[in-house]
């Protein structure tokens, strides 16, 4: 099961991040998780939100470069070594992980957002291995 991630291109300039978040706020788009990666020149703000399509539409309207992409939100039980075991499965299947970030950690379950080189393939793989995945809606309900 895929989730839609909303990625926004942001040049490194004071106030730019706040402007982007302002657009989402005005349209009542709730942020469930984010990762901000940057170089010296620009950054990519990757967001899991409750309404990615609306977020994308509004950001485009306001002149931002943004993209919706398929990511897997994976729930694993919160125990030492579980993430590594999962990665081993993914590695063995020859799937490359482009990036990954943690989402939220509850007492028993941890969630990670993972972007794989092949979204279809990883989806099938996770299902085969009985790994629990979530949608944005699932998260929003939590």
């Amino acid at each position, binding site marked *: 099961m895929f989730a839609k*991630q909303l*990625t926004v*291109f*942001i*040049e490194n300039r004071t106030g*730019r991040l706040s402007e982007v978040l302002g657009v989402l706020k005005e349209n009542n788009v709730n942020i469930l998780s984010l990762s901000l*990666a940057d*170089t010296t*020149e*620009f950054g*990519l703000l*990757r967001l899991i939100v409750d309404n990615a399509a609306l977020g994308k539409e509004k950001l485009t309207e306001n*002149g*931002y*470069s*943004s*993209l919706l*992409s398929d990511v897997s939100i994976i729930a694993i039980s919160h125990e030492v070594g579980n993430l590594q075991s999962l990665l081993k499965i993914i590695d063995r299947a020859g799937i490359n992980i*482009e990036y990954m970030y943690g989402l939220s950690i509850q007492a028993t379950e941890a969630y990670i957002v993972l*972007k794989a080189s092949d979204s279809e393939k990883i989806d099938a793989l996770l299902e085969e291995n009985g790994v629990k995945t979530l949608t944005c809606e699932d998260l929003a309900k939590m």
Partner: protein
Amino acid sequence: MIWSKEETLPREEMEKLQLSRLQETVNRVYAKVPAYRKKMDDAGVKPEDIKTLADLAKLPFVTKQDMRDNYPFGLFAVDKDSLVRIHASSGTTGKPTVVGYTQGDLETWTECVSRIACMGGATSKDVAQICFGYGMFTGALGLHYGLEKIGAAIVPSSTGNSEKQIMYMKDFETSLLVATPSYALRLAEVAREMGVDPEKDLKVRIALVGSELLTDAMREEMHKFWGKDLLVTTNYGMSELMGPGVSGECLEHCGLHINEDMFIPEIINPETGEVLPAGEQGELVITCIKKEGLPLIRYRTKDITRLFYEPCKCGRTLCRMENLCGRSDDMLKIRGVNVFPSQIEEVILSVPELGPHYEIVLEREGYSDKLTVKVELAAETDSFGVLEAITKTVRHKLQVILGLDAKVQLVSPNTLQRFEGKAKRVKDLRSK
């Protein structure tokens, strides 16, 4: 359509006409303009020495500095009473250059612009929206009278208030747009922001762009924004010579036809002043042979181009000047390398992931020049790899074309400054 029979004169007849007009003009300025008389005396040349067109080379050049030195009316060949219009350049780098027109000059100007508008496909049926700034700038009024003469309906909307411009275009069914290439692109952006598709919802079929270089890549961009069937031509002129109307492109896109019965073109080596043969690149020098108010002789335009005399497929025999690659004024010297901003523009427009707007920043770092090209990202991505590949491509292309290493800085769409008149895309922060 060809507007006037002079545009198709056989070379021999054209040269005969040019010589008689040249001799008349030289006689007149020698008699009436003390500054010219002094220049010619200093150069040891008299009006009667001009026996052939080749003798033009004996006459001294006139430069923008001469116009400043004789500010405001020192180079005029008529009394102020005979003038019916005065224009001036913005004068950002000193005193403005002042130009004046007699009634006859306005008629000549109108004639020249009517010709270039026809070259670009204009007809009496067109609704022509002129998005050049009206005022002291010659562009707007020049196009205005020339298009009006053809019988087009003029919408003198000037620059600014882009949303209203789009409304006029829609409601008046504007079919012909006059603007700088960069403002034409801006207008298309504004139209889209308003939910108006320039290609489907508007009727613009002709763009006569000018006052800024139109590179091939920019022409492509015009098609991308306004539709592939848009007839885009550029035209050339400058206030000192008259305004727009010195030359214009026909729909064959093989250079700009110079109105040679009004202007004699020459190409010179800008360093030595030596006249170069047809086909060689150098600085364009223009002599006005049908002007009363301000007939400049051998005016150095600082524009770099080439001349071709083979008749065009369109039927015109007028000499063609190659679309400009730049002005010697605009040329940047970066780490000892001569760079025209248009070369950088070509690179940027060749990369589909980038928008058409850009900014060139020059800074001094230690003893070296640092070139930064800021450009808007048009692609959508979630990957640094893609962004890095885009900047790498641009850097590589700049390296190949300019031989210079540049820093390429991607910025968000719609964040670089937009221009309504001439775009100012170069920021030279190197201390002078």
